[in-house]
């Protein structure tokens, strides 16, 4: 059986805003559903992996074929929990460890706190 390839994305709301991981995930799911419908949403394989409350970073995973769909949905989010908001993709990687390394590098560079 062919191994399922995945992509891990680190997401963060705008710097001066705080939302819970659940709110971010709800906003993302709702946008995926709006843009691609039930059929498209079922192809993304989107799920929550980890929520880092201290840094406000949500790690999600999706099918590697659906990466563009998920990124488009992330970029299209304009509201979370009824408040104006945006979600940025902080990093993308094929493995969770790779993503953690990327985030660490960005943190030391200062481009992500």
């Amino acid at each position, binding site marked *: 059986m062919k191994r399922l390839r995945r992509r891990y994305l680190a997401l963060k709301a*705008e710097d001066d805003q705080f939302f819970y991981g659940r709110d971010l995930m709800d906003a993302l799911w709702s946008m995926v559903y*709006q*843009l691609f419908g039930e059929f498209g949403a079922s192809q993304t394989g989107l799920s929550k992996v980890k929520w880092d409350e201290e840094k406000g970073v949500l790690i999600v995973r999706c099918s590697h074929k659906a990466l*563009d*769909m998920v*990124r*488009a949905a*992330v*970029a*299209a989010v*304009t509201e979370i929990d009824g408040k*104006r*908001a*945006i979600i*940025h*993709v902080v990093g993308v990687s094929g493995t969770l460890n790779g993503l953690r390394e990327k985030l660490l590098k960005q943190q030391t560079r200062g*481009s992500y706190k």
Partner: protein
Amino acid sequence: MKQFADLHLQPNLDDRELLEKIIRKAADLGYSLVGVSLPHRVQQDAIDFLQKICRENGVDLVKRIDLAPRSSRDLLRSLRLFRRKFELVAVSCFSKSIARQAAKDHRVDLLVFSSGDSRGRFFDVAEARLACQGIAAFEVDMALLLKRGGFSRVRLLSCLRREIAIAGRFGVSVVICSGAVDVFGLRGPHDFVSLAALFGMDDVAALNAVSVAPLAIVERNRGKLDSDYVARGVRVIRRGRN
């Protein structure tokens, strides 16, 4: 490293805190060049302040004017008045005659169609044919897409898909801009590339639309505004002494 440009920010110039925020955010997102829409009679101190913020954040500022003419004649008059005062001229095409005039005029850089309805957008085959003979690029304003929802967004996506296909067929440059009025309208260049897939732009074309195409327009115009520029292909290389 690839350079990215967002040629359309339209913040309130009187709100200096907002200006600082939006320029800083654009720099954080990886843009090295931003175009700010300025009013016709802009105060010099507002430009100086913008340039200062941009310098502090390592971003290159492009002075842009948005013309919204009522007729072709009005467009020609505005171009005569403002072309040499701004580095970028965008024309909002509210009628077919204005769109046609803008597409064939070499002083127009960007063609803007801000209607979400196909009847209000005039970028068709004839328009693309004129635009490819001229130099005007087709602007995709992402703010239009982001602020819409439901059927209105579906209609806009359908229009954009058709227009992007026409632009590709005739080799008309496409420029993707945020059209942001505040930080909530800003997105990273790669986010725009992903969003562009929604209206049928492939990754390479979309990356060009946020980097190569806008940078080329600005470089060309700065060359034209240079004091050594005489005409297309003619430049002063040395000045003699009397």
